[in-house]
């Protein structure tokens, strides 16, 4: 019991302080006499704040507010920027535009329009949105026309990334006069002014319009100033939202499709009405999604719902976020159960995030003129379960469709009787139209059984690497009564005494090709052992001649593990195409 308790506590990961915790404590401190050297200690506080900021997220600036101590002059809030950022940013709007830069509020275009209407002088201010070049709205009559910068609008700033509509102008759009500074297209924060002094040169009939022109003075921020670092490979998963039910999570884990996945190269795959859709986003859009996700779920938050008490069929929402070159990883588990009031807040945020991410993808893809399309997987994971034949109206196909890969030679899955393998998209298409992302078919099985097949598309991160496994026999003795060869494959992080992720079993007859699988990049362990027949098969002796290898499968790698068996003397595993292999041979065990 003591060890179970220790394990439970030990399994908790370090979690940073909630944002603003130190602020709230310091604000509540009662007055005390100020000691010497307090100014110097500011450096320590700032260093701690920077360290926390680094933990919380690369682009988000920690704001540490210190109330003035007695006898000290009032101080402004301290704002510190991460080392990589050129500006201090405090929070982002939903479309990824900063809310505050170096303590100065950033107005949205609609707010800026109101400010322009009431401005009495040319005091500059910040406005942020999505910029597009657009020339129009020119003030040409009566002549002479206004001075050049005030004559025509040169660009439009919008809220959100959708393509701007110049006429009629929406309330969330702002026309900009371009003088010497030409902003880049996309997300941007600009310092602008109105009531330009040159409006005095305009003829009286157009002077009011000249005074209302918004002139760009400076580009203050672009996403490049504070971008979130991330891996950029086509298999690198940056962001994923998954929603499962308890029963599916346990029994059909191989069949669950993530609701939303974003990859390092800008590819997005999401589930829409049981079909997978995809779009390609540019880097600004990727940054917008990462920022939105970072704000929705503070880095480091994780909740573990009471799985054990959840009723079968209860929906569990899981959320996973990976950013900064895979360096940070967040998982949130919450149960969508009205009785779990505290979880409801998390679930609500996850739902809002999921909805928002999808909406943004549609907006972004429309803006990039590359409309979303159906996702075309190259491979499918198949799960086959043998069960007693049931007389239903469900169509049943005459026989297993891939005779070169008998269903009972597929891998066994941990803790389940189902078999798991993979087939190509062409092989799935040959089964006929499916209608939904996950295709199901029922085939006649041996005897009075039927084989229920599910084929589930594999996503880019799930096919990052390939691994083939085979066995050869060299020398040694023979197992007099025959034997069965076993190979197990697991993620290296999985406890060695846990059920393997995949297990193959074949009767030992010379060389054996166990098959091949595509897998996510990562570290894996292959274990090989033999079970000689006890007097007569299928009664088997305890495992012997065991060996194992741990190795790294990089994205894009195609590796092969060859078990070299010397019956009764042991085995070894030779790896090609993998890195960091660590072999352990236990001969004759």
């Amino acid at each position, binding site marked *: *019991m003591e060890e*179970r*308790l*220790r394990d*439970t*506590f*030990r*399994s*908790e*990961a370090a*979690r940073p*302080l909630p944002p603003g*915790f*130190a602020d*709230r*404590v*310091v604000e*509540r*401190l*009662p007055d*005390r*006499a*100020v*000691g*010497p*050297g*307090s*100014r*110097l*200690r500011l450096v*320590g*506080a700032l*260093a*701690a*704040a920077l*360290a*926390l900021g680094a933990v919380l997220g690369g682009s988000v600036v920690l704001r*540490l507010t*210190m*109330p003035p*101590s007695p006898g000290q002059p009032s101080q402004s809030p301290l704002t510190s920027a991460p080392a990589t950022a050129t500006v201090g940013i405090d929070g982002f709007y939903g479309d990824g535009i900063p809310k505050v830069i170096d303590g100065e509020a950033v107005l949205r275009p609609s707010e800026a329009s109101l400010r322009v209407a009431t401005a009495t002088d040319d005091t500059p201010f910040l406005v942020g949105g999505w910029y597009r070049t657009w020339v129009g709205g020119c003030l040409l009559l009566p002549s002479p026309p206004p001075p050049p910068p005030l004559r025509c609008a040169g660009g439009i700033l919008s809220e959100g990334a959708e393509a701007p509509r110049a006429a009629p102008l929406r309330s969330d759009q702002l026309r900009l006069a371009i003088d010497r500074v030409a902003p880049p297209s996309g997300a941007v924060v600009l310092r602008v002014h109105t009531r330009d002094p040159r409006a005095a040169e305009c003829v009286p009939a157009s002077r009011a319009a000249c005074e209302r022109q918004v002139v760009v003075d400076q580009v203050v921020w672009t996403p490049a100033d504070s971008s979130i670092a991330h891996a950029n490979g086509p298999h690198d998963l940056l962001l994923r939202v998954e929603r499962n039910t308890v029963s599916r999570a*346990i029994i059909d*884990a191989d069949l669950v499709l993530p609701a939303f996945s974003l990859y390092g190269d800008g590819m997005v795959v999401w589930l829409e009405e049981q079909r997978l859709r995809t779009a390609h986003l540019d880097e600004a859009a990727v940054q917008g999604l990462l920022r939105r996700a970072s704000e929705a779920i503070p880095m480091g938050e*994780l*909740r*573990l*719902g009471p*799985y*054990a008490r959840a009723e079968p069929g209860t929906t569990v929402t899981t959320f996973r976020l990976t950013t900064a070159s895979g360096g940070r*990883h967040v*998982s949130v*588990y919450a149960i969508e159960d009205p009785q779990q*009031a*505290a*979880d409801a807040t998390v679930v609500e945020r996850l739902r809002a995030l999921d909805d928002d991410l999808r909406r943004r993808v549609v907006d972004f893809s429309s803006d990039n003129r590359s409309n979303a399309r159906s996702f075309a997987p190259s491979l499918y994971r198949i799960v086959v379960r043998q069960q007693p034949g049931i007389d239903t109206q469900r169509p049943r196909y005459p026989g297993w469709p891939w005779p070169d890969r008998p269903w009972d030679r597929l891998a066994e899955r*941990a*803790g389940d009787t189902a078999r798991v393998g993979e087939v190509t998209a062409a092989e799935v298409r040959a089964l006929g139209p499916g209608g939904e992302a996950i295709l199901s078919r029922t085939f006649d099985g041996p005897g009075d059984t039927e084989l229920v097949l599910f084929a589930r598309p594999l996503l880019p991160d799930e096919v990052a690497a390939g691994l083939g496994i085979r066995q050869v026999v060299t020398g040694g003795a023979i197992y007099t009564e025959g034997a069965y060869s076993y190979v197990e494959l697991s993620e290296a*992080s*999985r406890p060695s005494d*846990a059920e393997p992720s995949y297990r193959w079993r074949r009767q030992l007859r010379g060389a054996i090709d166990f098959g091949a699988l595509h897998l996510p990049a990562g570290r894996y362990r292959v274990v090989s052992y033999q079970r000689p027949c006890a007097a007569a098969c299928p009664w088997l002796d305890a495992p012997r001649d065991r060996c194992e290898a741990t190795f790294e499968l990089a994205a894009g790698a195609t590796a092969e593990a060859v078990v070299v068996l010397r019956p009764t003397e042991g085995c070894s595993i030779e790896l090609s195409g993998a890195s960091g292999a660590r072999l352990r041979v236990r001969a004759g065990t």
Partner: protein
Amino acid sequence: MIAARAGDRHAFAALVEREGPAAVRLARRILGSAADAEDAAQDAFIRAWRDLPRLRDAGRWPAWFRRLVVRAALDGARRSRRGPQIVSAEVGDPAAPDSTARLAERDRVLQALASLPVGERAVLVLRYGEDLEVPDVADALSIPLGTAKSRIHRALRRLRAQLGDES
């Protein structure tokens, strides 16, 4: 620490940043609620700020401050009628997908812990979560050594019963 004791708020803020995660974690383990734990940790820091001038030996800070956190958590539990509502835990090495069985096992233990009286939960958290020796558990709770021993024994027995584990 010395500057904070002398009344330097900035130095104390740095102390909060440094000690805060462990304080919130300890309070959360006792209270089972992240929000209540933050409140308790804040209360502990306020008390620490107030009483820090009386802490002559900076080396005694860890045990001294731990007592404040435990006291604040126990006070918070008494104030709260609802008791622990959610049991939450951060799973270590989140990059590695954990098996559902292990998650369920952790959850069972946490749920059983949550069902114990707060005093018994606190001794188990201090003994097995913070890895304190029994005399240090007694010190953190400001109770006699014998009381701490018997409370740990009783809490373990009750936890076993909750988990249906007679081993």
